């Protein structure tokens, strides 16, 4: 048989030059297993989209790998905790004074007030502005030997929360030389990026002078694997130690010991278009809300890796959960007045047709939409589904082309401040108002909450605003997702963060 041989020769001729440079370099070489801690192999779901720019979507990725830090961080209860700033005081309405701790950048220079002020100033000048700063104008100036004064144009009681955002990471002066800031060797976290291999992999080494102590793992080999099944398979074949965001469909293929679930602040909800179409009528919105049975979604579609929807803030937002459980028991310490009020009575649906849109980047969402379709059809709606890739969908949703939208949103990712998410998602001026809601009562409640500076008062006000939003039936919370992280049995100390901002820390080791 000549043909295969001949064709192979042709193929060889064709491809020989391409083949040598064809394989991705780096990867899971077993090297680095020195006496003091072995390297961690981590598979992340989202590849760096903007060359590790700290201002965009890559910011979370950097903070999850322990590369960057901000002045503050969120503690388990969702309050601001010290990070690069040791402490802070509010001097007056618009001025905050942050006292820095003694720390070193990964390029060897000290973290000085000048450097911090410069980093924050660069962030304010970034284009497009990082999510945590949208609608905020602030200036940062050195004050004394180890203090930075941050001044906001309008009073901002949530500033320490805001500064915990991964988008406001502090980098050394060296990072801002070129057109786009780079965190390679300029951040302050326990690990530093030594080599970035495009959107496929990155190599990180331990930063020995980290202020919080040396990390136990000597480095990280990070891989960006978009396909959930591929991540899971890599963990099962021991090619990696930690797999981020295992899809629900794959969860049961993992051993119990390697499957870790965390309740997150990510809420899947049905957003109803309040501006145009059938759901402009609050009575139909009420009918849709009544038609939805969230427990089926949590139990069957998410196979129990989710909790039925209770509000915009789920059980992972501990204070909101506390407030909600307080609603059922006798009111305690001022909590518990925040029940949705003024909801419309459900009207007769009478065969109204609606279009429900969703995206397939999260594989569970099309399934949720199909179950919703059936539930709504039972209530008398005629339902058409539209499933696309997210980037092909967002602009059409914001333009109000659909009657309803099923989406998952991490309610506290950007700022950690419950009020700013309500402001951006549900007020007339909101930048990400997918329900196209413009309601006086909601705007008023959010505005009131924005003024509160005391943590507890602010949270209570946020609960009131949430109740106002729910009262309009613009959003029907479906489920609160639990994220499944696959962790190899030999790995210890993985940070399972409900805010999805941290994953690997100083204590993570193999």
């Amino acid at each position, binding site marked *: 048989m000549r043909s295969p041989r001949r064709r192979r020769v042709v193929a060889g001729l*064709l491809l020989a030059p391409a083949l040598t440079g064809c394989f991705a370099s780096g990867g899971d070489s077993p090297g680095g297993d020195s006496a003091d801690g072995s390297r961690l192999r981590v598979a992340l779901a989202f590849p760096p989209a903007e060359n590790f720019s700290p201002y965009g979507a890559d910011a979370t990725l950097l903070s999850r790998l322990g590369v960057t830090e901000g002045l503050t961080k969120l503690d388990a209860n969702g309050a601001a905790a010290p990070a690069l700033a040791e402490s802070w005081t509010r001097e007056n309405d618009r001025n905050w004074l942050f006292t820095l701790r003694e720390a070193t950048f990964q390029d060897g220079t000290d973290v000085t007030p000048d450097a911090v002020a410069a980093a924050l100033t660069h962030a304010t000048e970034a284009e497009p502005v990082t999510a945590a700063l949208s609608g905020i104008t602030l200036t940062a100036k050195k004050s004394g030997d180890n203090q930075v004064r941050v001044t906001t144009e309008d009073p901002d009681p949530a500033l320490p929360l805001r500064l915990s955002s991964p988008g406001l990471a502090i980098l050394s002066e060296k990072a801002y030389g070129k057109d786009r800031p780079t965190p390679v060797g300029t951040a302050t976290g326990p690990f530093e990026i030594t080599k970035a291999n495009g959107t496929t992999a990155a190599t990180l080494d331990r930063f020995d002078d980290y202020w919080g102590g040396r990390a136990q793992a000597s480095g990280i080999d990070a891989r960006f694997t978009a396909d959930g099944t591929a991540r899971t398979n890599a963990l099962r074949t021991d090619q990696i130690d930690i797999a981020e965001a295992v*899809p629900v469909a794959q969860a049961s293929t993992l051993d119990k010991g390697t499957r870790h679930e965390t309740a997150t602040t990510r809420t899947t909800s049905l957003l109803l278009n309040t501006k145009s179409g059938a759901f402009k009528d609050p009575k139909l919105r009420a009918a849709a809300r009544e038609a939805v049975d969230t427990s089926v979604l949590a139990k069957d579609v998410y196979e129990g890796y989710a909790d039925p929807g209770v509000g915009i803030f789920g059980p992972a937002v501990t204070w909101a959960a506390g407030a909600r459980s307080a609603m059922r028991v006798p009111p305690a310490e001022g909590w518990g007045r925040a029940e949705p009020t003024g909801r419309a009575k459900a009207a007769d649906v009478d065969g109204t047709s609606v279009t429900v849109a969703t995206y397939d980047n999260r*594989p569970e969402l099309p399934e949720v939409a199909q179950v919703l379709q059936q539930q709504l059809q039972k209530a008398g709606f005629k339902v058409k589904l539209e499933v696309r890739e997210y980037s092909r969908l967002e602009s059409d949703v914001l333009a109000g082309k659909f009657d309803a939208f099923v989406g998952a949103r991490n309610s506290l990712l950007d700022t950690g401040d419950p009020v700013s998410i309500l402001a951006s998602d549900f007020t007339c001026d909101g930048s990400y108002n997918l329900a196209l809601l413009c309601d006086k009562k909601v705007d008023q409640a959010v505005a009131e909450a924005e003024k509160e500076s005391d943590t507890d008062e602010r949270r209570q006000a946020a609960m009131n605003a949430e109740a106002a939003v729910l009262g309009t039936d613009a959003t029907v919370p479906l489920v609160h997702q639990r994220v499944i992280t696959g962790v190899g049995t030999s790995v210890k100390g993985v940070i399972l963060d409900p805010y999805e901002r941290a994953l690997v820390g100083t204590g993570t080791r193999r």
Partner: protein
Amino acid sequence: MAAALVVAALTAAAVCSRTLWLGARRRLDERRGGGSAAAMVAALPEFLTASVLAVVVGVHLGWLPALGWYGPRWMVLPALALGLPAGALLGRMLDDLLPGAFAEPWALAAAARGISGRATARQAVRRCIPGLLPNVGLFVVGLTGGAVTVEQIFDIPGLGRTTLQAALAQDLPALQAGTLALVLLAALAGALTRLTARLLIGPALRDGALHSLHRPRPPVPRRTPLLYGTVLLAVVALGLTRDPLALDTGARLQPPSWDHPLGTDALGRDLLARIGHGAFTTLALAVAISATALLVGVLLGLLPRFSGPLVDTVNAVPAVLAGLLVAGVAGSGAATPALAVAAVAWVPLAAHTTALLEQERATTHITATKGLGAGDAYLLRRELLPALLPPVARHALLRLPGVALALTSLGFLGLGAQPPDPEWGLLLAENQPYAERAPWAVLAPAAALALLGALAVTAAGGVRRPRPFVRTAGQPKTAVALTDGETA
């Protein structure tokens, strides 16, 4: 990629081995059946093979790494996933031409002269390859740019995925670079295939000393298409009596039982019902597109000067990118996905037509017909088209399941079938994540597609000449070829 080619070549070889073996011994008349298995393999969706291989060989058996791209060991599984269907397709096309080569006078002369069967077989393959080369070239380019799903499953940083991501993120420089690389590769592959074809049969082309590669006699009508047809019809008919949309999330991923003969999917819907109801939409559209592609492919293939560069360019664009482009131009109307798929589906057919046309023009019987004073129109109608159409039509049928799948791959753009429509490609796609936990959920639609492929291929052979006495009837084509051979 090279490995995928090797796999494809091996598969192709396996597909034709029987014909070669028989042909070498001049016993082709006994040849019967065959082709169904190849057609079934060709109908297998790449992403399905890929995920099954990754899970079974990579995870459970642990023989080979399940993902990554670091060295030769990592190449085997992706190469298998990509090479198997393509190899089956090419092998089937080669198999289609081989009997014609074996029926040429030189083969008879060689046998009479006592030249070994091996040598004859080698020459027969050499004789048929030029007709396939353009498609091999297309396959190389398609592998680079169009293997997006396989790249995803095995986590390979491929050009196709990068380009598609760039297109989605509207990253123009990356998109331009990727497309440019693909176009260059396509041009290179095109030039190389043309060069190889020239090397193989150049002198014969120049001197017009070729023979028509027709089958010496039409294949014997077989019962197999009836069998495949009945099974498929039975499944569809049974499915039609059930409700394809009834959700019962409590009964998700149930294995086959009396209540659900083919099991249930991730939302507890009956798979039999979904396959049955999906058959019409899937088939109607796929058949319509295939017919259009065949028409356009043959028409453009007849104008090689015009279509050659066009083929190279269009082929460089993966179907998904074409979908994006068409959606951009035509908006996301109901006809857009069909347009997008048709826009690329004609390419391999046109390439095939051109290659065959080139050879056919150089045959001695065309020279003879011209010598007898036939005009261009007569030549085209009576000589060229009858010679070209059957193999190209069989090729189109072979690609029918692929067209059905291509329609689904545009789903993420919001084009084509939307859930909960039970279109077959969609069924495969939505059940793919559950392939390991509920194999029946993907096996059932995949089997339906494979059946469709086998049915299309076997029916192309059997239905054309349903009368049993055809076997003994005179064969005008062979007769022409023989007389030409004598005069030449």
